[in-house]
């Protein structure tokens, strides 16, 4: 199914972008990186599916919906980072925001290049 292909592609892209970024921010052990990857598994497919749903079924709520979903993803990942102590002595929510911004911006650039 084409939806599954999109989800898998986006998840792989998120791994490629966010895990090295997390490592650069201080997630320097294997367990921390695995937790970071699992946090992406929790948020990325849900956000992508939500975006697809908005695009197909609720166009008028697309932009605001995307922003809300991305913020929710940042909050969820920040919560996981704080509970699992991924980034020591640093604010996990700000790091989550930074990682997601880098990932989002890279995704938009990739989309532009593809088009």
């Amino acid at each position, binding site marked *: *199914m084409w939806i599954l292909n999109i989800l898998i592609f986006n998840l792989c892209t998120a791994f490629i972008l966010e895990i090295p970024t997390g490592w650069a921010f201080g997630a320097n052990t294997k367990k921390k990186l695995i937790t970071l990857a699992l946090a992406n598994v929790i948020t990325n497919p849900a956000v992508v599916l939500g975006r697809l749903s908005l695009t197909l079924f609720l166009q008028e709520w697309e932009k605001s919906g995307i922003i809300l979903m991305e913020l929710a993803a940042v909050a969820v990942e920040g919560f996981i980072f704080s509970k699992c102590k991924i980034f020591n002595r640093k604010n996990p929510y700000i790091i989550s925001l930074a990682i997601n911004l880098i990932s989002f911006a890279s995704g938009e650039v990739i989309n532009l290049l593809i088009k």
Partner: protein
Amino acid sequence: MKKTIFVLCMVFVIVMSIAATAFADAAVYDVEKADFSVIVKTPDGGLNMRYGPGTKYDKVMSGRIPDNVQLYISAVSDNWGYTSYNGYEGWVALSQTVRVSEKEAKTPVKAGYTVYVKTPDGGVNMRTGPGTNNSIIVKIADGVALYVEETLDGWGHINYNGQYGWIALSQTTTTAPAQVETKPVETKPVETKPDETKPATPTEEVNQSPAPDTGNEPASVTPSQTVPMSNSAVTAENAMSGQFMLIAAVVLLIIVIAILLIVIINMRSRK
């Protein structure tokens, strides 16, 4: 911590149940939106319409769609096309059709039959063109007989009170109502009932059962030829929604598994 794990396991079981239901209920075939017209061309004079894209699905209607009828395909799946015809909605084998060019599909098809306005809200809008984006000229009341000169994408070109316009054929019926305002018509009874909201089935004039040319009287139609609604037909949008539900259930399942894994990993690291 044990309580948390127990709760997560319960959530996991619930999600598995929902996923199983979604697997059972969702359409399991890929559906893609489409926007083209085809003409029925079969070796045996008729095309079956089915509830799903495959011969394993039951037929939607007892009769077949005759050759040379033009159908509008709104979705495709594995060489089957989703269409509507005479009020029925379902899937037809595209191998038994010939695709028409966009120019041909947009050309009005000559009709020459009478229909009667039948709507849930008391009247049908006559518009300046074939589509709801065209402005309304007048609203024609239920029961009025109208002679359809030509059709295009489920719209009929008519003359009402000296004015030409287009009406959605889905808001009409070929069955004469009990009290009807008659107009001089030349007609052979033909059923057409595509939707007003989505351009469904432009139709050729079809003689499913030949009827006598009755001159000025509205032709009679046997009850079996009236156009019932096909409530149980699987729509393309329902199929898409079904796919979404299925994938959403799978994503939910994966999320729960990921949460469990995070908890397990961090429990081990604390030890």
